[in-house]
């Protein structure tokens, strides 16, 4: 139960891809860990994940965060991002785009082989894009990320040419994500069942064995030569291998780390982080995820939130600042943007989110919600001011669920009857699909501000084949659609930044969302583990340069 982590099991569809430049704040809390000693070769790292165990290790299939966490250890992408958010070479050494933005040439590294011996070349890139676009792959995140790519042409062994249907300013960011990583075509050809168990890549580790419900064993790739351009050292990893365990219960995970049974845990909870910082021996990595911040979406597609005055009244009444401070023990900062703070183009406006109960009451009176029952709940024409708020216990951690109870209590003072219902994931999807919600919290990870198009373009009100629609605020605004569409094709960085700022002003100013904080992504590891860092792409840790000092 404590394991309901922030992103935990938003299905693939919720994790779409594409985007702009991102800066991930993700250096170890102790500063320069790599400088504290000489690297030691050998040893097997034990990783304990609080995320759901993936049903398939190939991140092309579906494409969620738990898959990205582990796939980053054995698969690599064409490009990566550095800590300032600039796109840097990885499996592709350079790239050029045509004048019209419809053709991209990627020059690939030479003399690289997948760990099954298959050569890495333009044919392999072509095969991967075709795999992602093949409906039989059941890809969601990678499929959407490459939505504007029509075909890949093999110009030579080392040059792959991408043909696009429309210009895509987010193409490089899309390709930096683990969900579009490059796998061995020979591995893919084995078919989904086999490839899911042990995908083959070019990464620093190789999938050796997967014992479902228990662990995945990864062993070192001794022939490893690649790595993103900002990698700390060349050649094979220091570690002999990684044992990737699944420990869903937060307290058990932390106890295992304290006992030395595991070397690193993910999804460290606020109270755990607080304890760890007091004990002082463990090292924290705080790597907020890119894309959208955690926020409450106000369903503007139906009453009562189709009235902007009611939306504003709710935002004026719902007080979350004190709750975020106390429930998260200072590990999460209040956000005033719908985008993650690691997004360079995130636009914030805290003046829109001042709480003011009198103002909220005045707005509701003005909007006609004037009658009050014995509990103080307002109604209009006999209809009570009820806000249904389904909460996915898989995605909202206990601290967040407590925060929602506080939202419920503060909104009640203005006369809102917030009906919280903690439900499992499938009931939650059911409630959303049936539009049986006025409030919802749905985290969304994706590199770059193009996530705004996924979340707030009116096209996203139409459900995907899976039944999920990402525009949960049901924001339908022609001006906003035009801005988001233009920004996605705009190649000039300044123009693009300006378009995204205007778009975010419309979203925040229309009171469609109540931003809370970044998608929390905290890791704790033992002091003996050094050289680990979170990738600046989607904030997953990489162990290519890590070693165990003890």
């Amino acid at each position, binding site marked *: *139960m*404590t394991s309901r982590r922030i992103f935990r099991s938003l299905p693939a569809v919720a994790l779409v891809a594409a985007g702009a430049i991102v800066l991930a704040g993700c250096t170890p809390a102790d500063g320069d860990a790599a400088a504290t000693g000489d690297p030691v070769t050998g040893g097997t790292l034990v990783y304990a994940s609080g995320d759901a165990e993936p049903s398939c290790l190939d991140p092309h299939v579906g494409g969620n965060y738990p898959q990205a966490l582990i796939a980053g250890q054995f698969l690599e992408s064409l490009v990566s991002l550095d800590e300032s958010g600039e796109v840097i070479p990885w499996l592709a050494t350079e790239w050029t785009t045509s004048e019209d933005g419809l053709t991209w040439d990627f020059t690939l590294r030479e003399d690289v082989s997948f760990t099954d011996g298959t050569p890495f070349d333009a044919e392999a890139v072509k095969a991967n894009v075709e795999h992602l676009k093949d409906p039989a792959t059941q890809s969601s995140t990678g499929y959407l990320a490459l939505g504007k790519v029509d075909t890949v042409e093999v110009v030579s062994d080392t040059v792959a040419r991408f043909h696009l249907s429309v210009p895509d300013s987010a193409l490089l960011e899309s390709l930096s994500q683990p969900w579009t990583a490059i796998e061995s075509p020979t591995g893919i050809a084995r078919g989904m069942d086999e490839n899911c168990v042990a995908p083959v890549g070019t990464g620093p580790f190789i999938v050796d064995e997967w014992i479902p419900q228990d662990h995945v064993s990864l062993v070192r790739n001794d022939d490893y030569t690649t790595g993103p351009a900002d990698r700390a050292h060349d050649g094979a990893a220091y570690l002999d291998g990684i044992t990737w365990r699944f420990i869903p219960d*937060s*307290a058990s995970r932390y106890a295992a780390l304290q006992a030395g049974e595991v070397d690193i845990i993910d999804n460290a*909870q606020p*109270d755990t982080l*607080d*304890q760890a910082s007091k004990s002082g021996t463990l090292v924290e990595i705080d790597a907020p995820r890119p894309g959208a911040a955690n926020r409450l979406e106000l369903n503007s597609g139906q009453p009562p939130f189709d009235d902007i005055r009611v939306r504003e009244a709710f935002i004026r009444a719902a007080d979350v600042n*004190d*709750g975020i*401070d*106390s*429930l998260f023990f200072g590990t999460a900062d209040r956000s005033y943007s719908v985008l993650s703070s690691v997004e360079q183009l995130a636009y914030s406006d805290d003046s829109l989110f001042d709480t003011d109960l009198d103002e909220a009451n005045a707005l509701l009176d003005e909007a006609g919600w004037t009658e009050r029952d014995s509990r103080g709940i307002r109604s209009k024409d006999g209809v009570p001011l009820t806000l249904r708020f389904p909460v996915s*216990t898989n995605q909202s951690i*206990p*601290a967040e*669920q*407590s925060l*929602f*109870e*506080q939202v*419920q*209590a*503060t909104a009640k003072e203005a006369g809102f009857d917030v009906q*919280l*219902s*903690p439900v499992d994931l499938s009931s939650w999807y059911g409630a959303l699909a049936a539009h049986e919600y006025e409030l919802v919290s749905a985290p969304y990870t994706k590199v770059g501000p193009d996530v705004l198009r996924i979340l707030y373009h009116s096209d996203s009100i139409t459900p995907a084949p899976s039944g999920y629609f990402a525009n949960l605020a049901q924001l339908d605004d022609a001006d906003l659609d035009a801005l988001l569409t233009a920004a996605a094709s705009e190649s000039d960085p300044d123009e693009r930044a300006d378009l995204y700022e205007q778009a975010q002003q419309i979203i925040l100013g229309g009171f469609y969302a109540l931003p809370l904080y970044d998608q929390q992504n905290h890791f704790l590891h033992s002091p003996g583990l050094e050289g680990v860092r979170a990738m600046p792409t989607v904030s997953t840790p990489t162990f290519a340069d890590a070693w165990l000092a003890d």
Partner: protein
Amino acid sequence: MSDLELSNRAVAGRSLPRPPRIGTVLALAFVAFLAVATFAPGLLQTTDPDAIAPRDAFEPPSWAHWFGTDESGRDVYSRVVEGTAASLLIGVSATAIGLALGLLLGGLAGLGGRVLDFAVGRVNEVLFAFPGILLALLIIVLWGPGPVTATIAVGLSTAPGYARIIRGELVRVRTSSYVEAARVLGHGRARVLVRHILPNALAPLVVLATLGIGQAVVWASALSYLGLGAQPPAAEWGAMLSAGRIYITTAWWLTVFPGLMIVVTTITTTMLGRTLAARDGSRR
């Protein structure tokens, strides 16, 4: 069932009425407290149980907050008092449902003749094969979580136990010598049933019900603990335990006090049940 053995042992062991013991007095006092907490919680509460104060979160027990404050700064004592009604209502209603169904099934089996006895007995055995909590979970999966479903689920899950005991009592009394005697004297079937069988067979029910309430409160709390009973922000003991669980190493008062209420309530009703059993036995 063990409840029956227990009451029988009590019957065998005590022959004279005795003055109420200190434990009984304390138990009665606690029941009085529960009654007030159920029907007029405001008399006992120090503050609004749902009023949040995030800045006062996680405060240990003090004069201002007897049982401390929870993660949202709510007063744990006031919430425990508030939760009494929910927990007891579920406990009492579930026991009533269980007893009513138990009476029906047990009555059919005990008085309805061989075929019915056999049929009910087999159905009962199937139900017994499931742990009660599993049966309750199944019912909740079918009907959705919530206090009403939880009550019905717990009631249905306890019915087989009652049915078996009631059947046993009915059979015991039906074949007893005084009923035989009444029949021999020519009394009608209905008269024998109403005057002799039912009063004697059903007297232990009062004891059973009292014992059952404690059990039902534990079950209801267990379901709420799993998130299948009371929904937020309702203060219910099991739900409070569940919410406080993750803070158990840093804020013990979030789990200790609701837990204590469940334990004390269960012990109290069990003690009263035993006392009643003893009196019942001594009257015979």
